[in-house]
């Protein structure tokens, strides 16, 4: 019974802000393993929240767990904005890398060598 109570209690000590900061750092390093671990941790936290919805649980320090989470979320808001920007930059970088790979695999027709030898053709318009 005590074990069940333990499972239903939101994970105390798991600071959302720390998770957000570590996610940003792991993404900068492209540490896929760590990011996948963090995704699992977030899944678990999400499950905890869902199972505790509607209940008001007290922590060892006498504060309500939802108050603690709300405080953590407020503190993590700035970190989330940074994480979103890192994610945006990563998406742009990934697009560049995909295009480069396609270029090297010959899936895109133009190449640097072609570009170097490129000479402008006669314009089709306005040359009268």
């Amino acid at each position, binding site marked *: 019974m005590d074990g069940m109570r333990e499972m239903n209690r939101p994970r105390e000590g798991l600071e959302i802000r720390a*998770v957000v900061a570590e996610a*940003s750092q792991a993404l900068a*390093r492209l540490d896929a393993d760590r990011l996948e671990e963090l995704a699992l941790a977030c899944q678990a936290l999400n499950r905890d929240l869902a199972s505790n919805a509607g209940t008001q649980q007290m922590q060892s320090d006498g504060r309500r767990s939802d108050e603690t989470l709300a405080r953590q979320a407020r503190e993590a808001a700035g970190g989330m904005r940074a994480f979103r920007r890192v994610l945006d930059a990563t998406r742009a970088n990934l697009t560049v890398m995909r295009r480069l790979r396609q270029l090297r695999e010959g899936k895109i027709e133009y190449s640097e060598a072609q570009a170097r030898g490129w000479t402008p053709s006669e314009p089709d318009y306005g040359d009268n």
Partner: protein
Amino acid sequence: MGTINAAFSIMTQALDADQAALNVVANNVANANTLGYTTETPNYQENQPLEIGGVSYGDGVTETGATSVRDRVLTERLNQQQQVASSTGAQLTALNTVQALFTPDSGSSSAQAGDISSDLTGFFNSFSSLEANPANNSLREEVLSSASTLASDVSNAAAGLNSQRSALDQEAGGVTSQVNSLTGAIAQLDQQIQSTSPNADAGTLEDQRQQDLSQLSQLIGVNQITTENNGISVTTTAGQPLVSEGQSFQLTTGSVNGVTHFFVGGADITAELASGGGQLGGYLTARDQDIPNVLGSLDQLAFSVSTQVNALNNAGTDLAGDNGNAGDIFSEPALVAGSAAAMSVVMTDPNHIAAAGAGMGTGDNSNATAMAALANQAIVNGATPTNYYANFVSQLGATVENVQTENTAANASVTQLQTQNNALSSVNLNDEASAMSTFERSYQAASQVFTMLNTIMASVLNLGEQATVS
């Protein structure tokens, strides 16, 4: 060519080609720790086949040189992100120094600008105390003392901002010689590359040029354009040429309204350099936008408080019986600009504080009540003095946080691109595919983390607490 000789020739050519390839590998190993060196791969060219007795035999391969495994698209993206990282880094350093000026109790004993909020409260409260006993000399002294503390902290903050602006101006000017040195070197390398390798990768020369471009990107925002014969043109992000056809165009400086401006030829490109990126962009943004904005707000506060308090004091009656001409408490500013730096207390005799209303006896307190009430009136751009100050400090904090966010993202992006650039320059195609796969996995996992964290934030919001993520 005889059959045996031909076969021998094929073998020796193959050995020569292998030897040349080994030399390339040896060169890569020797330069493994050279900054900016790009790994070279040997190029092989198939020789013309031999016809022997009507049968065609392959004639082996010849090593025709080495090509650096570099990708201009990737390095250009890297340079572009480096420009953003350098710019936001320089701006952030400047903003952190500015913010420290307004952090309570952070300043030295002579410049506790962070206490301006409590100074304002203390100053208006001193009039509230005077209301109870308007003729009391020590309470009158207290009014002048708190006015002096307020004026001193405001003017010290303005002096700190002006000093920070001058330091940024010097740092910005110092970048010029580095930029000119790099653009000169790039122009020289460009000439060499165009004359020696107009149609092929120029190896270490291109490495050097790339290295110089990378350094230049950390200093200012630039665009690079590939031209014919393997050359490049370098322009500012707004298109002002810095290197073209093997020639560099020097950046010069001159003083305009007391600050350093930047010119190429006769054109003043200061504004475009500010928005362009690189360290110089960060310095100029802080010098020309961030600090003037903060100083402008402080000027407005000093101007409004000084003029309103002086006007009320001159509308009342002081202890010496002066009615309507008791004099100014603060130095009266003529213009908003410069009000903070010039803020000071000019009243020396506390008897000239006009606590009594116009035409009233010296025991009256109605003017002291009116001056105390200024604390709760919207006298500074539609806000009370303390609210106005709190808002501008809060806006400064938001600006710092935004720049911090941009800097974090740009640095993360640079780290990612450097990782990919290294992978591209040093591994085979299979390893490169693996690096790409890691990139994809990282992005997907990070997207999941972000989505779930957003859901968690929304759940917390449902618990009745505000958590904003934009």
